[in-house]
């Protein structure tokens, strides 16, 4: 009987999640009426609850533990509260983004429950706290005007924070990542990613003359350098790519982009020759099975998991995801692929892509260059991080040890990711206000604006406003 439930729910979850993903992309379509759009969001919500229910049916069938039921109910409550709060407080926000955020969080809860119940509960508590903390963020983004004048504060916080980790940080898995303050260990670099995006936006939104670019580049390079010295390769790459892309969009000069990538490649070659830990990563990437006893162990275990899981997965509790070292953090994607299946994992990847495009779309629509750069920077941080972690665990690229935002276990990563989503949510709200202001000033341009945003198909709310 247990077997049957696990097998059945496995296929149901794949089916529901595939539908969910499809709905997510169909919401991008242009020319969707407000009604249809809202129906999509509601269908997604329903699918989300169905996936969640199926998963916990399987969890209960295997564990037969009442506390799982309790935990399930708590998660449903959490989701309902998050949904209602966002819908009530930020009527103009992006419902799609809230849906995806909840979906990713729930998938994280499901797989963490399977890996370690205690950690799942801890993750749940952190998520609840993070939700309370980040709830006012969209409001703050809209109302705090001096954000763009704190350029050097951002730089100081970022550099000092990273330096503190480099000097006093605890080493885990060969990299210095976390600081311990008052008994609580956290990873400053997760938050400094956001601060860094704000810094670059401040530097480049007004002027992009050569001197200004040089100054920004120097500070950005300092960030990257400290991260390399802390052996946080993934972090260094994220900061680097984010800066290069933001610089390119701010200056619109391909020269900076190409120059950035070229110097990055040169730096990578130098790092490869200089640091043995970089060489080890590359070796483990090229032929993990030949060094399976040492360097290649982790990636090999990950590939065994994904491979053995196949397209449909082993079913919850039917695989051996705990054989992969650091599975809860950096290798959560492999655990999902193993037990929930390759199709499910691909859908997950597509949902992450969907979030990324929502971020970028926001960037394209913002008129204020400062907010535009913020949206873009956060989008790149998010998208590139997803690429690094999924590419790393599947051996598409060498593994760099970064987390999957909102899904992986870890307080700092979770809080920072939720903050990121909240900031973008704030931009969405503001974007609608911009449209509103235009509309009251000049009805003609307001109407034009409406048609324009209708075409891009992201914000149905415009229609409601005018």
């Amino acid at each position, binding site marked *: 009987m247990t077997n049957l439930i696990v*097998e059945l729910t496995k296929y149901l979850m794949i089916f529901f999640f595939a539908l969910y993903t499809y709905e997510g992309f169909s919401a991008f379509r242009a020319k969707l009426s407000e009604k249809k759009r809202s129906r999509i969001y509601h269908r997604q919500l329903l699918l989300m609850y169905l996936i969640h229910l199926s998963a916990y049916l399987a969890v209960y069938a295997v564990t037969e533990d009442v506390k799982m039921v309790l935990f399930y109910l708590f998660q449903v409550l959490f989701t309902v509260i998050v949904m209602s709060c966002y819908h009530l407080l930020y009527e103009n926000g992006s419902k799609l983004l809230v849906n995806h955020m909840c979906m990713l969080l729930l998938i994280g809860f499901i797989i963490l429950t399977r890996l370690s119940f205690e950690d799942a509960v801890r993750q749940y508590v952190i998520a609840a706290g993070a939700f309370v903390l980040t709830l006012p963020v969209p409001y703050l983004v809209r109302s705090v005007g001096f954000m763009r004048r704190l350029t050097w504060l951002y730089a100081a916080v970022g550099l000092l924070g990273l330096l503190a980790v480099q000097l006093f940080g605890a080493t885990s898995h060969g990299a210095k990542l976390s600081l311990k303050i008052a008994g609580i260990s956290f990873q400053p670099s997760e938050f400094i990613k956001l601060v860094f995006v704000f810094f670059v936006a401040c530097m480049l939104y007004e002027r992009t003359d050569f001197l200004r670019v040089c100054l920004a580049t120097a500070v950005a390079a300092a960030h990257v350098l400290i991260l390399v010295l802390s052996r946080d390769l993934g972090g260094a790459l994220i900061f680097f790519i984010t800066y290069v892309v933001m610089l390119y969009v701010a200056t619109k000069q391909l020269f900076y982009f190409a120059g950035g990538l070229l110097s990055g490649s040169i730096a990578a070659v130098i790092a490869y020759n200089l640091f043995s830990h970089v060489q080890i990563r590359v070796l483990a990437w090229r032929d993990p099975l030949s060094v399976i006893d040492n360097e290649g162990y982790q990636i090999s275990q990950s*590939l065994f998991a994904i*491979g*053995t899981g196949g397209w449909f997965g082993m079913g919850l509790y039917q695989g*051996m995801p705990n054989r992969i070292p650091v599975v809860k953090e950096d290798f959560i994607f492999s655990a999902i692929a193993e037990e929930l299946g390759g199709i499910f994992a*691909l859908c997950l990847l597509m949902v992450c*892509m969907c979030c990324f495009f929502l971020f970028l779309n926001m960037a394209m629509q913002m008129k204020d260059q400062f907010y535009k750069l913020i949206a873009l920077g956060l989008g790149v941080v998010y998208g590139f991080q997803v690429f690094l972690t999924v590419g790393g665990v599947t051996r598409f690229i060498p593994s760099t040890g970064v987390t999957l935002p909102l899904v992986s276990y870890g307080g700092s990563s979770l809080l920072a990711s939720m903050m990121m989503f909240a900031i973008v949510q704030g931009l969405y709200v503001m974007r609608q206000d911009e449209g509103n202001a235009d509309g009251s000033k000049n009805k003609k341009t307001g109407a034009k604006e409406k048609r324009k945003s209708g075409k891009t198909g992201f914000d149905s709310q415009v229609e409601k406003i005018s």
Partner: protein
Amino acid sequence: MVTYTFLAVFLCLMGYVTYFEFALSEQFINNPYNKRQELFTQKVIRGEIYSADGVTLAETIVDAEENEVRRYPCARIFSHIVGYSGHGTAGLEATANFSLLRSNIFYGEKVVSDLQGEKSPGDSVYTTLNYELQLQAFDALGHYDGAVVVLEPQTGRLLAMVSKPDFDPNTIGEDWEELVDEDNDRSELLNRATQGRYPPGSTFKIFTTLEYLREHPEDYTDYRFSCSGEYTEGHKTIHCYNNARHGSEDLKEAFANSCNSAYSSIGLELDLAQFHAMCESMLFDTDLPVAIESSKSSFVLEEGADTSAVMETAIGQGQTLVTPLHVALITGAIANDGVLMSPYVIDHVSDDRGVLVEQYTGKEYGRLMSSEEAAVLKEYMGYVIEAGTGRQLSNDRYEVYGKTGSAEFSTSSKASHSWFTGFAHQDGKPDIVVTVIVEDSGVGSEYAVPIAQEIFDAYYIE
């Protein structure tokens, strides 16, 4: 532009993940380090292993209480090549582990057994092994320690593989402690055919001859040597077997006589760097292209080695070590015009109802020598049977080509390992390679050759 760049990157990533699931995942699933294979044992009854002529080599018996016991009807005869499953896995039980634990029966049927909580029958593995030849080789080796390899040079199909001392896979559980005991120096679990490393003795003259051919492509037929039963250079003296005087001989005669004096003098003429490179290209210090556990042969003669090391190496003594399978593969390449076929043991995998799941065919490993070189070596090996140390194999039913050897393995005693490697041809039947090593016996012609003869006879004369 940023959007499209990222979109392209993401699409590549998704394409890669898809490709991984379709094409690459198999190699990772099958890896012996993948402990997830054990998960399949909960859902599948391990499949059977059969010989090419339909004899059951391994099967799982399920009793009334649903206890599963792995049984090996042929017991010791196939102990190393089929291996065991229970105390870990070895042999085919290890390499075909995943196939045996996978059930390719109709999906609906599988769902039904899932519902009823029953196990599905695993797929069966059909090997290339020939029961009659294996039995013949097993009996012929008798109470001696050693190994026999029989394979088809044109396809790479492995027909028989015997290693002694052996063990009974049916009682591996009870015998385990004794088998792995520190004081047990018989190493019954070692598959000597693929993992045993022996001095090659005179069979190595095949390599020395090949190197000489390469250094004298035009005038090797002009080679002459006058054998007085021993050859001295510096402080080193090499004797011919029984100090026999072979008199004046050319290269072909020296090969057929297995003349140590001639070959140690040839060794001193060779370009050692080139010799070393040639041996590396002949699979020395290389993993053999075979799926079962194997050891690397080693050739250690470096440029600038001293005279005595060069002389000993040229006649197959010294530091050189080979595995019987390696010798069989090189012999196979000579039989197959210089092209080596990768050896394989699994012919096909079928599901419980006999529906084919996967068919395996011979794969070319590559060309080891030109067809001219192969032809010269074949001619020389034919002369060994016609007028040399392998005369007793000469018969009018099938043609034989081969090389004998006896390898001294201890400096203190006169005991030696007895070698034979060769192949035979009869119109209308595939050629076969037979490589035999009999440990601690005597000269090749006395111990190894008769074993090879029994196998050839069993194969070519019903």
